[in-house]
């Protein structure tokens, strides 16, 4: 990739409201997790997501980025990640591109999740909180594409 990864730059709310699009080129440093999540949450708000849904999408992005750092890059904190979020209509689409190992994430087992065993919560979030989650291996890494409709019930409402 040609872009130089950098810390998450501040975003202008007015521009965000007009473009309904966020593009971030960051490093895999966990220090960037919070600012990247906040940027995506701001996009969700602009796109009409309620607070709970916005929080769920922010959590998903956090978990996806943390998985990239831990697994795709083996804990390295200076590697590039590109995040693009956009909602041209009623659906939010987020892509996360890395240039790491390219290995598919661990497939969730059929057995119920044991809450006292570490790991796996991030992938559960991805699967449960988004309408679609697609991992597409690239020649030099991985592309994760996630979609969520604005009208999708949040987990709390979905669980009644």
């Amino acid at each position: 990739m040609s872009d130089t990864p950098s810390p998450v730059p501040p975003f202008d709310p007015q521009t965000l409201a007009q473009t309904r699009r966020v593009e971030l080129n960051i490093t895999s440093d966990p220090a960037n997790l919070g600012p990247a999540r906040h940027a995506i949450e701001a996009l969700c708000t602009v796109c009409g997501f309620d607070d709970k849904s916005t929080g769920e999408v922010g959590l998903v992005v956090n978990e996806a980025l943390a998985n990239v750092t831990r697994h795709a890059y083996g804990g390295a904190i200076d590697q590039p990640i590109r995040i693009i979020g956009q909602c041209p209509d009623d659906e939010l689409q987020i892509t996360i591109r890395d240039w790491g190992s390219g290995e598919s994430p661990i497939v969730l087992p059929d057995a119920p999740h044991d809450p006292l065993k570490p790991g796996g919560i991030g992938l559960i979030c991805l699967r449960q909180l988004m309408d679609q989650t697609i991992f597409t291996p690239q020649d030099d890494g991985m592309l994760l594409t996630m979609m969520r409709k604005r009208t999708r019930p949040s987990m709390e409402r979905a669980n009644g």
Partner: protein
Amino acid sequence: MADIATGTELVPTARQDGDAVLASIRGEIDLHNSPELRGVLIGPLIASQPKRLVLNLSQVPYMDSSAIAVMVETLQKLRKFGGKLYLTNLQPRVKGLLEIARLDSIFVITADEAEALTK
């Protein structure tokens, strides 16, 4: 009652109260600072082998799975000497994550510290 030094702004206050340790956590917790949280929870907060470790999360608007992992590890260490982990004053996003992770029934969740000390 005695204060416990935590050495981090992430846990601004902690104190021993009988066989309980009560601590307040402050800020968003993710992979960036969850190792710092682990250092406090696994270190000074359970050094006295409390029967109750009560974490006040009223100032924690957000946490991710790395923070959850720290709390699960803390719970497992507490259980070795018969201790329990109490989480109080949960904010909505934190409560939601615990539900997704199915941990809302593993920890003891209470409305406030007073309830945690009597439950």
